[in-house]
C-alpha cells in the first residue's frame, strides 16, 4: 500500500482546560489521522517466506497477532508551535502490545523507511533504497523528518508514542507508527486510539485533545 492510498481524517483540537485568557478553545487543521491499516501478522510473515519462531508457533495457537499501522499528519500553522503529540492506545479484553516501531528516535533525521515482520512477529524498520519492498513489507515511499519519538508500554495494554520537538522547533510532517498486537483468539478485542497535543502560542503552552468531526475523542476503534 502506498501513501497515496491513505485516507486521512481531519481532527479538531479542543483545550483540555478553559484558561482565563483569550486563547482559542478549538483549533482546526493542525492534525489529521490516517485510516488504520490492519493485517494478520502471521500471515504476513508467512507470505514473506518466513517460518514462525517455534515459541511463536505455540503462542499463535491461542492468540492472534495483528499488525496495525497508524498514520498521523501534523501541519504547521502560523503563530502556533506544536511542541508535543501523544498517541495513546487502550487495548481491551486481554490484548497487549507485542511490538512497536519506532521505539526510540533520539534526534530529528531525514529518513525513508520500510516496515517488515520478523519471524518473532516483531515489527522491523529499515532504511530502504530506490527499490521498494515485497508483499510482506509496509513501505513508506516518501521522505520524512522525524521528531524525537519514544514508544512506551510495550507488552502492556496501554502502549503510547510520544513525539517531542527540540527547543524552539515544532513537531510537523507525516509520521507512521507500526505495532503488532497480541490478542486472545477467543476474544474480540479492540484498540482505542486517542491523541493529545501541546501547542505553544505566544510563548505559552496549551494542552489540547484531538476530536473527530463528530466530536468523539476516540479517534479510532480498531478490531484486532
Amino acid at each position, binding site marked *: 500500500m502506498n501513501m497515496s492510498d491513505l485516507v486521512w481524517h481531519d481532527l479538531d483540537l479542543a483545550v483540555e*482546560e*478553559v*484558561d*482565563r*485568557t*483569550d*486563547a482559542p*478553545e478549538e483549533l482546526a487543521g493542525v492534525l489529521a489521522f490516517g485510516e488504520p491499516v490492519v493485517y494478520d501478522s502471521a500471515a504476513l510473515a508467512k507470505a514473506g517466506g518466513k517460518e514462525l519462531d517455534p515459541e511463536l508457533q505455540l503462542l499463535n495457537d491461542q492468540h492472534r497477532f495483528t499488525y496495525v499501522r497508524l498514520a498521523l499528519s501534523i501541519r504547521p500553522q502560523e503563530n502556533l508551535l506544536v*511542541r*508535543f503529540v*501523544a498517541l495513546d492506545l487502550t487495548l481491551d479484553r486481554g490484548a497487549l502490545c507485542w511490538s512497536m516501531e519506532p521505539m526510540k528516535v533520539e534526534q530529528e533525521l531525514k529518513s525513508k523507511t520500510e516496515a517488515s515482520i520478523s519471524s518473532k512477529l516483531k515489527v522491523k524498520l529499515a532504511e530502504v533504497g530506490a527499490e521498494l519492498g515485497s508483499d510482506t513489507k509496509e513501505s513508506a515511499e516518501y521522505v520524512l523528518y522525524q521528531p524525537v519519538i*519514544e514508544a*512506551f508500554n510495550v507488552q502492556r495494554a496501554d502502549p503510547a508514542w*510520544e513525539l*517531542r520537538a527540540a*527547543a524552539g522547533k515544532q513537531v510537523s510532517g507525516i509520521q507512521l507508527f507500526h505495532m503488532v498486537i497480541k490478542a486472545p483468539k477467543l476474544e474480540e478485542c479492540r484498540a482505542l486510539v486517542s491523541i*493529545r497535543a*501541546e501547542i*505553544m502560542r*505566544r*510563548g*505559552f*503552552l*496549551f*494542552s489540547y485533545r484531538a476530536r473527530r468531526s463528530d466530536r468523539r475523542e476516540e479517534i479510532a476503534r480498531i478490531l484486532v
Partner: protein
Amino acid sequence: MTSEITELIKELFVSLAHIRSDLEAERFDRVLSTADAALLLCEQATSDWEGVVSAAEGSIAANAFVAARRSGDLKRSLTYAQREYAAAERSAGIGVRVRALNNRGLAYHELNQLVAAEADYRAALRLIDENPAEDLASMKSLLLSHLGQLLSTRGQTDEAMPLLLRAGTTKGLGSPFVQLFDPDLSRDNDIAMAAAIAGDHKKAEAIVRDAIARSTGRNAQIEGILVCNLAEILHQSGRREEAIEIYQGAIELHRRDPGSSIELATDYVNLAGIYMETGNRDRTIECYKSAWDAARKNNPRSLVALKALWGLSINRMVQKDYERARAAIFRGLDLYEEMRPDIAITESGQSGFLDAYRSLLEVGMYLALVGSWPDELRSLIERGKARFALERLARTAERPPGEQRHADFDDVGMNGLALDFFVGPNATFISYQYNRSLGGARIDVRETEMAAMVDEFREELLSSSRRAREGVASARLSRLLFEKLRIEFSGVRYIYWLPDGPLWYAPLEALPVEKSAGTSDQMTLGSVAPASYVPSISVLAALRSGATEAPSRDEWHVLAFGEPCNDGAFPPLAGTARELDHLYQLSDDRFKITIRRGAEATRENFLSLAPFATHIHIAAHAVADFHSEQPYIVFSGHGEQQFLRTGELAAMKLKANVVFLSACSTSVGRKSTGEGVMSLARAFLWSGCRCVVASLWPMPDTAVPLIVESFYSGLVAGLSPAQAAQQAREQHRLRGGTPKSWAGFQVLGDGDTWSERYSMKYFKTETL
C-alpha cells in the same frame, strides 16, 4: 522708525554679513566675538521694529551656534541656540521657530541632554504638522532624522527605524549634523551603508570613496565620518589591515577638527575593537584610552565614553591590572549615574545606555569575585537593577531623593534568605544574603542560554509528557543556580527572590531541592519557605518605607470582582463565581467586603472602588505575553471599554495591602533591561499596593478556585500573603494538582508583612 533703531538695524546686518563670511572661512573666534558684540547691541534695543531686530538676533545667534560647536565649545553652542530660540519666540514665522527648536535640540543632543533634545525635536515636528501650509518638508525630514538618531542612540531601535525611513535615510552618518551641512553626501553615505548592510561591500566601498573625494578639503568632520564608515565597510568585508589604516586616517581628520571629539572617540573605539580581535592588547588599551581622552575633552557624558571605559576595564582586567580596571569601571558607573536623568524619562529610553552600564557592572562583578568582596558584588548587582522602579517609588512616596537608602540586613530579617541575580551578556552572578552572611558566585551562563534553560523549565512543568515528569530541566536549572552557594535551605524562614532577565519568567519556587533524609517527597524550594519576588532589595526597602502597618482583620475592606460578562473572544468563567462565594462566606461579619459580579464587574466600578480597598481580588480574563507593552485585565463589557491596561493602573493611587490577580499571565509582560517585567502585577505595585499574587502563565478556570480558597483561608487565619500562598500551593500540590495550577502563582512585592515580628531588631529586643 527712529534714527537709533535704523542705525542699530544697519549695524546688526553689517555684523551678520561679517559673521557669515567668517563662518564660511572657518574663522570661528571672529564669528563668536562679532556675534557677542552684536547680541549685546540687541539687548540694548529699545524697540523691535516689526520684528526686524529679533530676526537679526536669531540669525546672528544661529551662526554663532554653528561656530561654537565647530570649535568644540558645546556649552557655548547651547547658549547661542537658546538665544536663537528666545528671539524666534518673538517672531511670527513658523520656519524660524522650527529652525531654532532644531538648533537648540542639536545643542542639547551633543551635550547628551537627550530628554531636552527630544522635547525640542518633537515640538518642532508638532509645529510643522500644525502648519501644513508652510513649505517645511526638508526641515521635517531633517528633524525626523535627528529624532531617529537620538532614539537609536538610546537603544530604541524599533521607534527609531520608522523615523529614519520617513526621513529618507537608512542609517545616518553617526552624527546628526552632517545633513545640516551637505545633504548630498549624507544621501550617498546612507546608500552606501544600506549596501553594506545588504552585504554588497564592493558597491558600498565605491560610493563612499566617491563621496570622500567630493568632500575632501570641505569639512574635516564630514570627511572624517565618511572615512570612518569606509573603514567599517572594509572591516566588515574582512580587510582588517586596510581598515586599520583607514581608521587612522579618520582619526587624523577628526583630530584636526575641534568640534569632532565624539566622532574621534568613536573612531578610536572602533579601531580598538579591531585590535582586540587581533589580540593586540597594548594597542587595544591605547585606543580605548585615546577614546576616553577624546570623549571627555568636550563632553564625557556620552555612550561612546561608557564604551571606552568598558573596553579599558575589560582589557586591564585581562592584564590582571585590577586597580586600573576598577578605576575605569567606577568612573563609568559614576558617569552613567550622573547623566541618567538627562538621557530619558522612560525605561525604554534608558535601555541603550543601561546595556553599556550593565556591561561595566558585569566586569565589576568579575573583579568583586576575584577579590572575594561579596559586599561589592551585592552592591553592583543592586546598582544595575530596578533603577526606574526605585525612582518611581521615591516619587510616589514624595520623599526627597537624598533619603533613598540602600537596603541593609534588617530588610531580609532573621533567617531570611535573599537571592539576588544578575543575568549579564556574558555570565550570571548571584549574590546571597542569609542572616549575617553574604556570599556570591559566578555561573558561566549568559543571558541567551539562561533564557533557553528557563523556557525548558517552564515547558517541562506544563507538559504532560512522560519525559517532562522526570524533571530533567528543573533539576539542571536548580543545580546550576544553587550548587555553588552552599546554603542549608532547611533553616530558611523566608526567601526573597530578586530575579533578573529571563529568570523573571521562571517559577523559581518550583525548582527541586535535595530531599531531606527520611522523606520520600521531592522537595521544592516553594515547600521550604514562603517567598516573594522583588525587583531589588532597595525596592523592597522602599515598598516598606512607604507602607503603613498591615491592617488588622476587622479593618479589612475586601473588594472582589468576578464572573465577568464579556464578548465572544472571552468565554464565561464559572470558576470565578466560586471564588467570590468563598470570599463572601469567609467575610461573615469579620471584615467588610464589596463584591461586583456579572454585569457589575465593570472597569468603571473598579476604578471608583479600588482606591478604598485594603484587599483586591480580581477573578477574570487577562491578556499578556512576553512582548506585551500594555497587558490588560478584561472586566465586564464589550470592546475596548472592558480593558484596564497597565499604564492606567500604574497611574492610580491605591493602598491595598494584598492584591490577588486570579487571571492569566498577570506577572508576564515585556522584559525591561534591569527592571523586570512590565506586567499587571508590577502596575499594581507601582500604584501603591504592597503585595500582589499573580500568575506566570494561563491559569485553568477549574483549578484556580481551590488555590484561591486555600489562600484566603490562610490569610484570614493570620498568615502573611507569602505564607498563605505557600500553604495554598503546597496543599494543591499534595492533592495531586498539576504544576500548571500550583507552580504558576507567585507573590510579588512585600509578601512578608509580618516581618517586624521576625526581624533582627525585634529578635534582639525580645532576647534582651
